[in-house]
């Protein structure tokens, strides 16, 4: 059997040529490429054999899938789903049970080194991985097994990328992110697409890029695609003029909150969060948390559950395994030192006076 191309697959799934071409220009635009790229994308999809995508689910809440299927443009959604839902995604595929598990085996053999492994969630390792069982086996076994012959891995969301809530302290199931589980010896690219969940357009953008251009998007040194994760929320936030002016929401129901001032003082983590929310926004570009009046909680950042309050910047430090609030310690220490200085100065003065008296 000759290898099917993406175009053939789409046509088989009922997508018209017209829609296909429209999809190609939308994709070129979404990825920030010139109109000339639409033809290149079309050509690639008509000639290249399709790349299967396997979408595994570990310990997770399915928010990544939920986000993904709400991608802004209905056409993009249909096309992308038609491209990837073919093979294995236990949330949205048609097959079930042994039939579904057989697909994995088939893809692993037939497309050795040529399939993309998308992972939502992560493997828990405690109690031999009992906290997440897929098809009667611990998830970590399935993950390792499918990772062996993949071409590249996409770590969907903060779970697969960093660990997220199940890895928050004390991490009872010992959930570990995908790259840590596979270890530094793993030699295929791992693309992190963090966020809880990631933005739909970011997800479809990444996967479309990989499928159409048949290569990994340019990554930063932490493995995130540069085109979506090279700036902080704060850098493109529409409330930034209020930050620079020094106009802050002091509490959630004050005058400043009504006027749309900057949310820094109520704990906004926009200055430390790398994501595309302030440019792409959410739900077809309708809004994003800051626009709705709530600070960013930094959901795309490593360990964001364990960095102190969502409503302040209290400097929680974890040094040598000891949790501490740097500001509390700092203020206390400065107070103690100040008092000690005052007492010492007084004692010194008394001593000096006494010495003078002696002489």
């Amino acid at each position, binding site marked *: 059997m000759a290898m099917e191309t993406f175009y053939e697959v789409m046509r088989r799934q009922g997508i018209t040529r017209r829609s296909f071409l429209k999809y190609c220009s939308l994709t070129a635009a979404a990825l920030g490429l010139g109109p000339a790229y639409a033809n290149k994308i079309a050509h690639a999809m008509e000639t290249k054999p399709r790349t299967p995508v396997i979408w595994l689910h570990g310990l997770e809440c399915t928010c990544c899938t939920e986000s993904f299927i709400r991608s802004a443009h209905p056409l993009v959604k249909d096309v992308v789903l038609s491209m990837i839902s073919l093979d294995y995604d236990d949330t949205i595929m048609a097959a079930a049970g042994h039939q579904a598990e057989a697909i994995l085996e088939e893809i692993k053999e037939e497309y050795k080194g040529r399939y993309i492994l998308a992972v939502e969630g992560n493997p828990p390792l405690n109690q031999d991985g009992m906290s997440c069982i897929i098809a009667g086996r611990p998830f970590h076994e399935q993950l390792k097994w499918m990772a062996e012959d993949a071409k590249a891995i996409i770590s969907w969301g903060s779970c697969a990328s960093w660990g997220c809530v199940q890895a928050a302290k004390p991490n009872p199931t010992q959930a570990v992110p995908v790259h840590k589980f596979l270890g530094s010896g793993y030699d295929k690219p791992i693309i992190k697409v963090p966020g809880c969940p990631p933005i739909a357009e970011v997800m479809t953008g990444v996967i479309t890029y990989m499928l159409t251009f048949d290569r990994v998007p340019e990554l930063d040194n932490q493995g995130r695609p*540069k085109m979506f994760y090279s700036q902080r929320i704060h850098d493109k936030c529409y409330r930034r003029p209020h930050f620079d002016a020094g106009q802050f929401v002091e509490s959630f129901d004050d005058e400043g909150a009504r006027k749309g001032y900057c949310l820094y003082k109520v704990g906004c983590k926009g200055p430390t969060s790398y994501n595309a929310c302030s440019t792409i926004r959410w739900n077809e570009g309708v809004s994003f948390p800051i626009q709705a009046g709530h600070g960013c909680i930094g959901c795309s950042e490593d360990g964001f559950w364990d960095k102190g309050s969502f409503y302040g910047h209290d400097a929680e430090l974890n040094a040598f395994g000891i949790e501490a609030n740097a500001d509390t310690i700092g203020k206390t220490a400065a107070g103690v030192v100040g008092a000690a200085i005052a007492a010492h100065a007084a004692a010194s003065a008394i001593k000096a006076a006494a010495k003078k008296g002696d002489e």
Partner: protein
Amino acid sequence: MSGAITEDKVYVYEAPVRLWHWINAASIVVLGVTGYFIAYPLPSLSGEASDHYLMGWIRYLHFIAGYIFAIGFVGRIYWAFVGNHHARELFIVPLWKPEWWKGFIDELKWYAFLKKEPAKHEGHNPMAQFAMFFMFVLGGLLMIVTGFAMYGEGTAPGSWAYNLFTTWVIPLFGQSLDVHYWHRAGFWLLVIFVMAHVYVAVREDIMSRQTMVSTMINGWRYFKDNRKD
């Protein structure tokens, strides 16, 4: 360092060290004050955003002072190589020398009012040297590294600060927020250093057997007596 000093005066701090000391002190004061207001901004201003740039100016001042502090720091390291031997005391604490420890304990006793008289020191006394290295030099390095890493986040990928610092500092500390938190911890460390340092400098000036503050101004250490120890 200590030992038998019988001269009336010695030339200790060369002009570049003195100049650096005061520029450095001024930059740290500016950094501390502006830094505090970055962490805990002033009450909100009313009116249009376009009428004000308060936070912007505070951050701008912080960054200028940050550059001065960092360039001064590098210059001071250079001077440790070409200056007199006192110029190296800031960076090399001879923890391996028993006599240094003797001096350290001696100084502790003087501060605990267990000694009537302190020893004389040409350069820094061992306790001062200890705090200068472990609090100021290491703390200052932490501030420069974390400071420029955060600065690079704002100047974006491709800028020198991003390439030189942000790229490796953020993963080293965890994530961006951790870098901010360590920068704040360093702030408190330096606040405490400066409090103690200024107190001790003034106190020694009055109570020790040698000049202090004027030494950091004109470079000469005058001794108030010429007894051997």
